[in-house]
């Protein structure tokens, strides 16, 4: 089965005609502990910094993951139960559109995408004016790339962005899988560079937020930590903006506006 076409809300003719399409970011992977929550935090803080006021769904039930860092905008949901599924999906589709970040644990990956397919969540969110972006962190085992491709081919996703976290690594001989990777990276990719241990320790403090740090509302660390973290964030923010920008331009181009 070949890759499914990516259809923007603008192409569909549905959705709001606002300046910026509200987006649902699904951050996922088939493996644990490879940076899903970190990426979710960065996306949420990036959106916060530009005034988009995102809402986060933390599906790491019951312990919670991202909730420890951004409690005021995070809702913990149990996506293995129908009540949790309703809490998330009915909120997204039943309230005025805004940006969302879904931090999905690996154990619920296939089940959740199967649910999305069953209830045509992508199509309905498109009709409601959203664009859905799936960010899949590809881990070291080859099976991770295989699962990434499985998700990529699983339905009419709006946008699919593979993520490589260099701190975790990827399939040992990347040149061997470049073609397979290239197919799923047509909407761009995100590469997370390696952070020094002391930077990681700094950002892993409970309640830490990147937006507060960048707005100098957080106790500032040593200059080298501050510098390295700023460089890292600027790099990821730039990549995210490029992904977002590509989505907007793609939609405008399809509408013949650019």
């Amino acid at each position, binding site marked *: 089965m070949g890759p499914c076409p990516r259809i923007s809300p603008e192409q569909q003719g549905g959705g709001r005609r606002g300046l910026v399409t509200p987006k649902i970011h699904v951050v996922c992977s088939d493996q644990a502990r490879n940076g899903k929550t970190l990426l979710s935090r960065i996306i949420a803080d990036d959106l916060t910094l530009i005034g988009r006021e995102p809402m986060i769904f933390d599906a790491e039930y019951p312990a919670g993951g991202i909730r420890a860092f951004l409690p005021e905008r995070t809702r913990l949901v149990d996506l293995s139960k*129908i009540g949790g*599924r*309703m809490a998330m*999906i*009915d909120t997204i589709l*039943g309230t005025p559109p805004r940006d969302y970040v879904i931090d999905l644990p690996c154990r619920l990956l296939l089940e959740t995408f199967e649910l999305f397919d*069953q*209830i045509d969540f992508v199509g309905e969110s498109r009709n409601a004016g959203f664009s859905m972006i799936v960010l899949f962190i590809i881990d070291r085992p080859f099976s991770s790339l295989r699962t990434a491709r499985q998700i990529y081919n699983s339905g009419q996703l709006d946008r699919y962005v593979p993520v490589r976290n260099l701190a975790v690594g990827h399939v040992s001989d990347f040149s061997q899988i470049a073609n397979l990777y290239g197919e799923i990276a047509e909407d761009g990719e995100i590469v997370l560079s390696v952070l020094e241990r002391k930077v990681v320790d700094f950002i892993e403090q409970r309640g830490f937020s990147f937006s507060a740090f960048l707005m100098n509302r957080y106790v500032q660390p040593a200059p080298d930590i501050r510098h390295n973290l700023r460089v890292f964030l600027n790099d990821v923010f730039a990549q995210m903006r490029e992904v977002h920008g590509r989505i907007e331009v793609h939609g405008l181009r399809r509408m013949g506006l650019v």
Partner: protein
Amino acid sequence: MKPTLILVGADKGGVGKTTISRAILDYLARRNIMTRAFDTENPRGTLHRFYPNITEVIDLHHVGDQMKILDTLDTANVRLTLVDLKAGNLGRALDTFEKIGVLEAARAGHFDLGLVHVIGPAIASMDEIGEIAKYIHGINYVVARNFVNETSFFEWDPKTYKRYFARVKEQDEIDIPKLNEMAYEQVDLSGVTFKDFIDNKSADGTAGNFSFVLRGYVRRWCYEIDQEFERLSLLQNLLVQRAPTAAAAE
């Protein structure tokens, strides 16, 4: 054009007869086929609750009610008449229809007659197949295995299966897929058709407030059940000879 009469029944209770009757009416309504239904669960029919405008509650053992169904097949302005038989009434209803010549008339081609026999996950349900075998030659016999409320069905052991169907020469088989319990309950509580639930419409026609997730489950279930119905010549003939094509009453 030949009318069609579909009987939906089972001797065992709680196997999903009314659910399947509703699914059939819903399937045809979504294809703009006009239908009418008789609910034999008198005095208060469950089917009637979901399709009040096209359903009449009757007592099949009253001659007057038998006439309501059978003497109007040609004159009713609908292609399909569906009878939802009360639990425990299948054998008796077929016996009655045999005695008054309904089955013979169907075999002679005066109208299309289908029996949708709903069976649940129990041998008692399978035993019914042997009990009704004598009635079903020459009519469309459909065995509907109902998974809607069950997480699993007993395994169909080939030998057992063959034994139960030994006396039945021809039958179609369909599987009614499982529907999420909460979604099923919500449709039931709201008293609307599956189509209206999916479309988020209340029983009074106003906008509903049903969960998108539950509507999604029902939409998917209807899609899956449609795939099953599309294998049944009994229903497909109705679509081929589509007339009248006005929107169904519900």
